[in-house]
Structure formats: structure tokens, C-alpha cells
């Protein structure tokens, strides 16, 4: 479904991504982890074209991101993305947040969009908050709405950029539960996260990045049980303390 091949990105004075190659098959859940500055956020933003890259190729469902003829907005509409800081639109109610792209991008009618939005809010457990503004919700609630907003576009794959890193500890689980349910329903997911518990529960593979390179790419059990690279071992030992 998602294929990255030798993707490299650099700024004038330093290299962010270095020959990164990996794949996410349909229905697979892949977790991307690594220390700060390893380039994992940048990598995931390359997948839906939010970050341009100089070398390599990325294809999603057969559509290449390098092809100048690719209709980026159309492609992005088929890939869902959830951000670290939720990024709900503060001037719109929760319901309008869910409806906006459905109406403007997919051309659905207001009623269709509202019905879909309501179903998704129920799915994430927030139907009572439809008329509220994002500023009136807690972080965990906002992130669940953000997931619903992405799902409203009926995406073929979902990208998550550190979805729980900005949440207070007591709210992390409510978001992870939604993500686990999503994975169990068969969604193709690429998740940048530090939550190793989540990785162990639902991820098929773990990709470990360090300083712009993919250092290890292994099935979950193997990654946690017998990490091959030394950097991965060091990383795991540090974050599995608690």
C-alpha cells in the first residue's frame, strides 16, 4: 500500500533523511520510533506530501508522490493524518470540523457529511460534544475528534505523527484505545510514537530510525526480543525503564 524507496531529504547545511526505504502493506500496522531528531516526523510527512524530498520515491496505492501530474490534494484526501498537537480548527465546532473537508473536497452534501460525522463521533465516544468548540474539549477529546475527522474522509491508510506525545498521561489511553480498535478493524496504519505498549499490542512491524536513517526494520516480537542494532538496543533500554 505505502512504499518508500531510498528517500532522502536535506537542508543546505544538514541531512534530515538518508536513503530511507520501507513498506506498509494493506491492513498492516507499522510503528516508527527513534530518538528526537531522528527524522521520523519528517518521514511520515513525506508520505502525504506535506514535506517535499529531493531523492527517492514514495508511492501510495500505486500513485507516486514524485510524479508532477499527481493531484496532491486528491491523494491527501485518501490518506488520513493525525497530528501531535491535534490541529482541530478552533473557529469551527466539532461537527463543522468533521464536515468541512467532506463537503469541500469530496463533494458530499451537508446531510451526508453530518450523518457520517455523527457516526464517527459515536465510534470514538464523543457524540455529546458535536456542537462544542475545540477549545472547550480536553486534549484527549480533541485528539479523538481529530481521528474522527481523518476517518470521515474514508481513507485507505492513516498516518499518525506522535498522537499521544502532547497529552497528559491520564488521557493517553483513551486515544490509544481508539487507535487499537482502528487497527483491529483492518486499517493500514503508519504510526510515529513512543508508546511501546501500543506497538506490542497491534503493530506487525517496528521501524527504528536514528539520525535520518532507518536502522532497523523488523517484526514486532523480534524487535523487542532481539534487536539487532546496538542503537536500537540502547534506545529500548532507555525507554522501557518505565
Amino acid at each position, binding site marked *: 500500500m505505502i512504499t518508500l524507496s531510498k528517500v532522502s531529504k536535506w537542508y543546505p547545511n544538514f541531512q534530515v533523511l538518508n536513503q530511507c526505504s520501507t513498506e506498509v502493506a494493506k491492513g498492516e500496522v507499522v510503528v516508527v520510533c527513534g530518538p528526537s531528531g531522528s527524522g521520523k516526523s519528517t518521514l511520515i510527512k513525506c508520505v502525504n506530501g506535506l514535506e517535499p524530498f529531493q531523492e527517492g520515491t514514495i508511492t501510495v496505492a500505486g500513485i507516486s508522490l514524485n510524479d508532477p501530474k499527481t493531484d496532491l*490534494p486528491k491523494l491527501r484526501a485518501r490518506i488520513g493524518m493525525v497530528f*501531535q498537537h491535534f490541529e482541530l480548527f*478552533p*473557529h469551527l465546532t466539532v461537527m463543522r470540523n468533521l464536515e468541512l473537508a467532506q463537503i*469541500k473536497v469530496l463533494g458530499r452534501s451537508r446531510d451526508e457529511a453530518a450523518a457520517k460525522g455523527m457516526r464517527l463521533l459515536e465510534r470514538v465516544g464523543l457524540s455529546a460534544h458535536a456542537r462544542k*468548540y475545540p477549545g472547550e474539549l*480536553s486534549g484527549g477529546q480533541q485528539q479523538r475528534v481529530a481521528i474522527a475527522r481523518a476517518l470521515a474522509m474514508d481513507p485507505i491508510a492513516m498516518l499518525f505523527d506522535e498522537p499521544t506525545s502532547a497529552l497528559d498521561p491520564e488521557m493517553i489511553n483513551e486515544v490509544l484505545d481508539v487507535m487499537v480498535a482502528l487497527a483491529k478493524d483492518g486499517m493500514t496504519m503508519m504510526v510515529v510514537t513512543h508508546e511501546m505498549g501500543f506497538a506490542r499490542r497491534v503493530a506487525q512491524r517496528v521501524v527504528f530510525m536514528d539520525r535520518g536513517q532507518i536502522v532497523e526494520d523488523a517484526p514486532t516480537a523480534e524487535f523487542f526480543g532481539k534487536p539487532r542494532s546496538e542503537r536500537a538496543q540502547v534506545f529500548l533500554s532507555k525507554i522501557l525503564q518505565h
Partner: protein
Amino acid sequence: MNYNWNWGIFFQTSPDGVHTYLETLLMGTGWTLATALSAWCVALAMGSLIGVIRTTPNPWLVRLGNAYVELFRNIPLLVQMFLWYFVLPELLPTALGDWLKQLPDASFYTAVVSLGFYTSARVAEQVRAGILSLARGQGWAALALGLTPAQAYVYVLLPMAYRVILPPLTSEFLNIIKNSAVALTIGLMELTARARAMQEFSFQVFEAFTAATVIYIVINIVVTFGMRWVERRTAVPGFIGAAPAAAAH
């Protein structure tokens, strides 16, 4: 002090034979407000456009926007008005130039265009600042949903940017009202021009200018309170700095 005060002058008929001095001042106020509001429409439209293109990733658009702002900010308003009023008709093809010179209310249209472009440069600065003050993620989130860049600006970035810059925009609106007085140099009979005319014909200098001052102050107060009402109405619940956050944690 050798000055004869005569506050009754307002009710005496002005030299046009028809209106009292007070009425001429109010007519002038009407022209002031008409000019200011029309110019404000021009300023908002052009200013938003230029402000937006200065935030795009395209370096040529950004340079164009910067050049526009520098041009209109570094020439005094009065000089700009003279250019529009005296110089433009001469530089156009003769037929068009002559038509412009004979346009009835030419000074009004010139004032609106000139004031509009002058202020649009300042509005552009504020719109740009407002957009840049939003978290980068907002733009990303809009694009990630499949909105085109234009849709992202219209539905996500600009609505919030305008709310953020309401206070400086209010200032600019007040400035446009004050700057409309400069148009008296090209013959627009707005409030200050009327006060000056009243002073010249009646010699009641201080009454005339006091009246004009009071009217400007009243306009100022009305606009300030009006904009505060707008700020309250458009405040986004829970957004820092806007409405009081309704705690729902």
C-alpha cells in the same frame, strides 16, 4: 483675547444659501464616512490578497507582495493622492485621461482608490502577521485533509487570522477615517474641508474647528465600541486571548 465667540454661528445659513453651517458640517461628515468605508473595502480586499501571497512558499509571489507593500508605505499619502489625481490622467491614453478629468465626483473616486491602496499595504502587513502567528500545524492539517492551498487559506487560516488581528485592524480603520481629511487637497468636501470653509467664510475659527474635533471624537468612540462588540461576537470559545474558556475537562 480679541476673539468674538459666537456659538450661534452653526445655525446661520452658509454661503451656499441653502444649508446652515451645521448642516454643511454634517454633509461633510457624510462624505468622510462614505470615503472611509469605500476605501476600507478596497484596503481589505487588496490587503488580504497581498498579505496572503506573502505567506505562500513561492519566492516570486513573496517578492511581488513585498514590493507592493514597500511602494505604498514609503510615499506620503498626499503625494500618492496627487499622483492618482493629477498624474494618472496625463499618463493614460488621451480619451481615457479626459474622461477621468471630467468625471463628476472625481475627487471622491480618487480619494477612495488612493486611500484604499495606501491602507492596503498596512493591512497586508497585519494579515501576514496574523497568518504567521497561527501554528504551522493548522495549515498542515488543512492540506492533509485534501483541501487545496486556496481552500486552506479561505476556510482555515484566514478566519482565525482575522480574529487575531482585529485590534490592529480597528486601528487601521480609525486611521483611514482620519486620513480621509487629506483628500481636501484634491477638492473633496469632507468634514475638515467643511470646517475650513466655515472658518474662511464666517471667521468663527474656533467654533468651526471645535465642532469638527467633536465629531471626529464621536466617530472614534462609536467605531472603538463597535469593534469591541465585533470582537466579542466573533471570539472563538476556549481560544487563548479571545473568549473566556468554558472548562469542560
